[in-house]
């Protein structure tokens, strides 16, 4: 596995992982309104999203309804000021701040803290 080495000068995105901060990529690799998947060192996957104001958030990439690792490919939206992603498979929405599924109280996905620095 080759890993992109983020440059030292640019702003980078880090995701909380295993008690520390995993450096993921240069901020400029993210496009507003769209997600990107992150491969975690333990083989897990996270989904990173940047909204139009530049805020970056991360949740688990696995869609709990289908078991497929696709949430990063969903559409980003906001409702009542809260950002969410809609799964590209069966369209359930997940709150990006809490991981809660907006269409089923009993389902949620993990949330990862993010630092942009």
């Amino acid at each position, binding site marked *: 596995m080759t890993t992109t080495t983020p440059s030292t000068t640019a702003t980078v995105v880090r995701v909380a992982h295993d008690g520390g901060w995993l450096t993921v990529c240069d901020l400029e690799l993210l496009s507003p309104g769209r997600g990107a998947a992150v491969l975690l060192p333990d083989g897990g996957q996270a989904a990173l999203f940047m909204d139009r104001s530049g805020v970056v958030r991360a949740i688990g990439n696995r869609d709990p309804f289908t*078991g497929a690792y696709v949430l990063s490919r969903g559409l980003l*939206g906001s409702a009542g000021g809260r950002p969410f992603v809609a799964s590209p498979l069966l*369209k359930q929405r997940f709150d990006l701040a809490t991981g809660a599924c907006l269409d089923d109280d009993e389902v949620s996905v993990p949330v990862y803290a993010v630092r942009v620095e």
Partner: protein
Amino acid sequence: MPETTIPNTPTFVLVGHGMVGQRFLESLAARGLTPAAGRARIVVLCEEPRPAYDRVQLTSYFAGRSPEELSLVEPEFMEKHGIELYVGDPAEHIDRAGRTVTARSGAVFPYDTLVLATGSYPFVPPVAGKDARGCFVYRTIEDLLAIEEYAKGARTGAVVGGGLLGLEAAGALKGLGLRTHVVEFAPRLMPVQVDEGGGAALLRTIEGMGLTVHTGVGTQEVTAGADGAVNGMALSDGSSLATDLVVFSAGVRPRDQLARECGLAVGERGGIVVDEECRTSDPAVFAIGECALASDGRVYGLVAPGYEMAETVAEVIGGGRAGFTGADMSTKLKLLGVDVASFGDAHGSAEGALDVVYADSRSGVYKKLVIGADGTLLGGVLVGDADDYGTLRPMTGSVLPVSPEQLVLPAGAGGPVTLGPSALPDDAVICSCHNVTKGAICEHTTLPEVKKCTRAGTGCGSCVKVIGQLLPQSQDTGLCGCFAYSRSELYEIVRTLGITSFTALLDSHGREEARGGEGCEVCKPTVGSVIASLAPTVGASGYVLDGEQASLQDTNDHFLANLQRNGSYSVVPRIPGGEITPEKLIVIGEVARDFGLYTKITGGQRIDLFGARVDQLPLIWTRLVDAGFESGHAYGKSLRTVKSCVGQTWCRYGVQDSVRMAIDLELRYRGLRSPHKLKSAVSGCARECAEARGKDFGIIATAGGWNLYVGGNGGATPRHADLLAQDLSDAELVRLVDRFLMFYIRTADRLERTSAWLERIDGGLEHVRDVVVHDSLGLCDELERLMADHVNGYRDEWAETIGDPERLRRFVTFVNAPDAPDPSVKFVPERDQIKPDLELLAGPVLAVRTLEGTPS
């Protein structure tokens, strides 16, 4: 279970937990007559191994509905109301003097009130061999499980009985892959519901579907081989037919055995005699549903009358007044893909009744309305086209607002009239399964609310379409929570103001509270599509993935491929008109082989390659583009395929070159973004091998040119396209299609196929014809110009993508490990190819979020 007899509360014992039994329990609950409310003890004896389920929808088991999904009992229902349900423990004996019921388990239950809801059993004619291995009836989930299992080792099946249920069973056998025969003793199919003319139309259609029908013959004997398994049937006309499986569906008989044994009055031909209150000859005992012989002397084999009886008894034992005096026997065949409906006095037996009949045996359409001497509608039979059932049935008993001829004539024959449901009086029963009137439905505003509060639409489902038409077309016609404008209004805004960015549109024209936000999964792709359709005209980039446009696209458009259930993608190169050279076929084969893709011929005359990872898409397309392929836009709301038949070039019947026309049209409209996908087909003659009338725009060759049909649809709500214009030259055809498509794109709602659009817009087909043929709005020049812009501006998205490293950057799975393939996308072998290796999560019944019109 402890006997929780609360002093002074009565004990109700219900025998039979079928559809009507469950409805009775719900009616008690609705009236607070429950143990939980301290008002009664309720004991239910249920013979089947599972609580009540939807028998009406039984056959949908074969379409993938699980027994659990068919359940009629909400989770916790019994617990919540404190009802004691004994599953798999039927009542065996009733002691009326001692007022007890004894169950098979030996348990004895005292009662104050006993309700019998034992339903019916399928009648099996007393023919020799009827018990051979391979003989079945069609009544319970267990019956279906047994048929399904047995059918695995069978090739031919026969259904005895060509009534409503028999045809449903025959459809199911056919669906299980059996060569299927239907044997009906009467001279026509569905003899109870349809008359001779209807029977003839039905016969044609059913035979056209590949079933073999034998009418006017009885079953004399079922023959079995040495192993005891069915191998054939001897018929009354001396002939015989070979079959591996037999389903008896020769009518039902009320289950009145228990009642007989304890001395309750039963009818001569069966059925427990009840009065208007559904009380039997013993005042402490009631009988409801299919086991009861109602006070009008009939045994009702339909669920709606049973529900009414259940309500009646609950009301009566709660101290109220109610009565059941008879019900409507209207029915609609739910299956087989044939439209058959009959309602009211279908046979015109009333004195002075006159028939208005339209029959076209070529197309299998037969419609008859029975009109009373005073002009009231008494009933009718609809075969082959039962679209009007939902509005006609509730009009039974009233004078039609238009002349009956107008209602039976087909579209295109001098302007037929379809009655809108708005013409119905408030007390018209719209849902006959649950006896819900138009007035009751109109108290609600959404379909889910109607279903929840009135249950209308939750039975056979045949009324759902009309309910939809009755509900307020939501006051807020806004697209979503972000925009108060509809799609067509947004189209006009984008077009006239030349807006090229979603955020600019949201911040200037969004709802106040949504401005500055992200938009949502509804408006982003919609606006993306509007901007793309207008790109050349408003000056936006024609490449759907440039800049901000990229973030608006659904994942399919984003990766220019279709997402599959395991996160992999499918690849569909365009094969215009379905015509392909051997060289190109070889390239597709080689690409599939080299990338390990699963290949399948699609229903759209092209080839789908499944199982590509995101990072493989550009590599695959590099090979395909090199070989001259282009994107097939299987992912976009845009033109899919223009199917063709082989046409005049080869076919002995063809009168025009349908392949060339299909290719021309497909190349002209490829890449055109629209409110929903667009499909087309061109047939070389009236035999219609390309199925053009099932398409958004379909073309059928004539000796004098081309006939253009519009608004056809396959899918969930099929619709035959309507003739827009006849005998067009090539140029006239193209010009008309240009205008038609652009007018549709301009005025349709999000995810509204041309079929739904044509039915929705004011004036319907006539209006569209006025606009695009007669240019009544003076729009045609502009529509043509918009299309010319599109045609000239078209570029292949995949060729543009692979030629640009910037654009290729998105095709990685992981932003932090661009070379790593997605480890979660795995495959296992199947039939010499591959299939997704999925966690077992994904059963046949995933919860799809049903936002109205969610994109697919």
